[in-house]
Each structure stands twice: as C-alpha cells, then as structure tokens.
C-alpha cells in the first residue's frame, strides 16, 4: 500500500535492533566491537568493510 515499498531502516534503528536482540545479540555485539577496535588500531582498514556487491 505504501508508495515507497523499500524502507531504509536508518543506521540508528538498525543498531538498536542489536540491543533488542536479547541473548542472541551478545555474539554480534562482541564481534562488531572487536572489528571496530581493530579498525581504530589500524590493524584493519575501512576498505575491508565495503560490501562486495
């Protein structure tokens, strides 16, 4: 019914869904934090996060 059928959830709403994921979210949070730490320490480059499409 909606004229725009594909919604962009928005970054904030996407990240919040980790918090709302309960126990299942623990692994995801740890992995995401770890990747961010590596990126901050420049062990991993930002380019690595570009999705292959």
């Amino acid at each position, binding site marked *: 019914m*909606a004229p725009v059928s*594909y919604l962009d959830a928005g970054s*904030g709403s*996407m990240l919040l869904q980790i918090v*709302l994921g309960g126990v299942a979210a623990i692994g995801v949070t740890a992995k995401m934090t770890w990747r961010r730490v590596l990126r901050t320490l420049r062990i991993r480059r930002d380019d690595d996060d570009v999705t292959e499409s």
Partner: protein
Amino acid sequence: MYSPTGEVLRELSPRGREDWDALERTRFFRRALEDGRIVPTEELEPGLLRHERLPFVSYPYEWPFEMLREAALLQLSLLGEALEEGFVLKDGSPYNVQWRGSQPVFVDVGSFERLREGEPWAGYRQFCALFLYPLMLQAYRGVAPQPLLRGSLEGIEPSQARALLPRFRRGVLTHVVLHDRLEARHADRQRDVRSELKKAGFKKELIQANVRGLQKLVTRLSPKRGRSEWAGYREAAPYSNEDADRKERFVRSAGPSQLAWDLGANDGRFARALDAGYVLALDGDERVVGELYASLRAEGSKTILPLVVDLADASPDRGWRGVERRRLEERGRPDLVLCLALVHHLAIGRNVPFAELVAWLRGLGARVVIEFADREDPMVARLLAAKREEVHEGYGREGFERALREGFDVTRSEELASGTRTLYLATPKQ
C-alpha cells in the same frame, strides 16, 4: 492498484515475482490466507495478482486504540511466522492492514520478501512511528494519537516520541530514548552500518527476539482515557425504552441496503439493527468507538466497521496530491444513512446550519433515516443552555423540515412518545 472494473490488482517486479513464488509455497502464508488474516489473493497470470476487494478502506487515524493495537499484533504475528520460514516484512505500516468488520486483514502481500542473510528488519522504525509510539502515547499519557496520525502520514518520529513520552515506562528507554539517541548520533555518519551488521553476523534470531519483545509490550498496553462525554450515553440519556424500541423498528423499516453509514453510532444498537451488507459505524468519540470495537470483536462481527470520525472535521484527502488517502466519501458511497440523535449536536454544538447538513447528506445520494429533537427536548435544552440566547433562535422543527424537503422527499415520519423527537425516512430528490 485498481483496474477500470474495480478489481484490486498488483503487478509484481521480477524480484517480487520470485518472492511471490517462494511465498506461495510457505505454510504460514497458506495458513494466514485460510484463517482470513491475509487478504484472499490469486495469481491471474505470472506476475499479476488479484486481491479480494474488502468492503471499505479505512486508515489508522480513524481507528480507536483497540483497533490500532489489534492491527499491530497482526503485523507482529505475521512477521514472527514469516521469519520462521525465512521471510520478512519489509515495512511495518498500519496502512497495510484493513478490516473485515472487526477482523483485521493484512492486505500488502508484496510486503513479504525473502530474508536476506545478515539484514535487520527494515520496517522496525516505521513500526515504531506508526504503531508503537501512537499506542504508547495513549497508554502512557492519555493522549489520543489520531490527530497526530492524520497530521503526518509518517507518524511520530523517535525524537518527537522522546519529547512526549515518560522515560521510565515499559519499553520507552529502549524503543524511544535509545532509538532517538542512536539515530541522532548516526544521522550524518557515512559508515555503512548495514554491511557492518552483516559482517558481525546479524541473524534472524535477533529480529525474532525483538518481535517477541514487541508482542509482549504491545499486548500489555491499554488505553488511558480521560472523561468521555459519550461513553455510557445510552444509559444516561433520557430516552424511554419504548422510544428506543420504536426507533429500532423505524430503522428496520428503512429496508435492506448494501452499505449503510450510521452517523453518531455510539454503542452500535441501530447499526446492529440494520439489514445491511456492511455498516460503517461512525462516531467522533474515540472511547465510544473503542468500546464498540471491543464488543463487536467479542461477537466476531464481520459486517460492522467502527471508525472514529468527527463529521464536523472528517478525514480529508491526504498524501501526495491528496490522492493517496482519500476522504471518507471517496472511498465508497452509502445507500442508506442513519442520522439519529445527531442533528442537534451538529446544529447547536458545531454551528452547522440545517441547509448545509442537508446539502451534504443529499450529496451522498442515499436515503436517510434522520431524527430531529425539538428545543423542548432535555438534551437540546442542555446544549442551548451553554450558548448565548440569540445564537440559535432559528433552531426548530419547522426550519429543519423546510431544509430537509429542499433535498429530500420525506416518505414517512413518526413522532416518538417523548413528544420532542421526530423520525423521518427520506429519499434524495431527483
């Protein structure tokens, strides 16, 4: 969506076609079609679907709390079932729900798509803006959300909800406060959160946990309402049972109809008495409509649709070029209109002249059952007491009948035993 013959058709994109082929084979979809939770749909030819046409289209800003909550729970249960079989709903909009009387029906089959690995629920934000925040606003603050939903088709933004809702009520810290903070913090960052989530292993169990949490939260929300002028009106009103019975008989004598509108339906007594294929039971009081919905739902009624509509400020045309969400009259014309115990409220309470009211009714093109209450009627006297004396000097039966006969032929009239009220059955002048 509509064909020239009035059929509801949907053309699918190539990707939509693949989704449809897979969807058709799922158990949850078949189950939901069978039990009426999803609108009956058939494939006319590859890529072209035809949906059953529901009796009347309505919008969330016309639904009382109970209906919005019911629609939210339908959306969540379908999403939960879809996830089990690898599907997701790509949005979270109450505009995808319509009604068969008191039963909610999900109408946007194109909204189901195969869940892509590592992706969150794209409709979550929309679900918050159009379902969760409006429900919370009424449950936690006692503010009816219909005017806000009518004002913005996008609903209530997280930042607005944060300003409006109390922080320490169930679900507010996460779905509202944290939502707004995260949104503000990430608004102008270029980081590709979607791929970041995917690489961190975001999985459907997270969406499922969110859906379960939302189901619990929404189920527990109940409407907080202030004083209502109209709730319990039937008990408080100074009508005798005899008059009510005569009124009911008069209404029945109007004969059968396809689509009837009961204006100022209150507890739905006369809507129920009608011999009609479908009835819109309209009332401006949100609480009254909520209570009517709850009783119709308990009865399993599929022929009466209760809606919150204030006739002196009814739903306008909304959305792009004013054609996305149409005003009431554009969504289906009645062939019978009940206008009981209403004229004095519009004429005195809302200053609508008789001629205006009759012209509007005439424009609907239906026969009407209309009730007029004299100045001596206790309810009218109460309304007049609140006004300056000279303002409604012209209010009287003679003036009303003159106006009525301008647009209608009166085929029958009956004075009620109280002596202050008259019923008219009238057909529009050709």
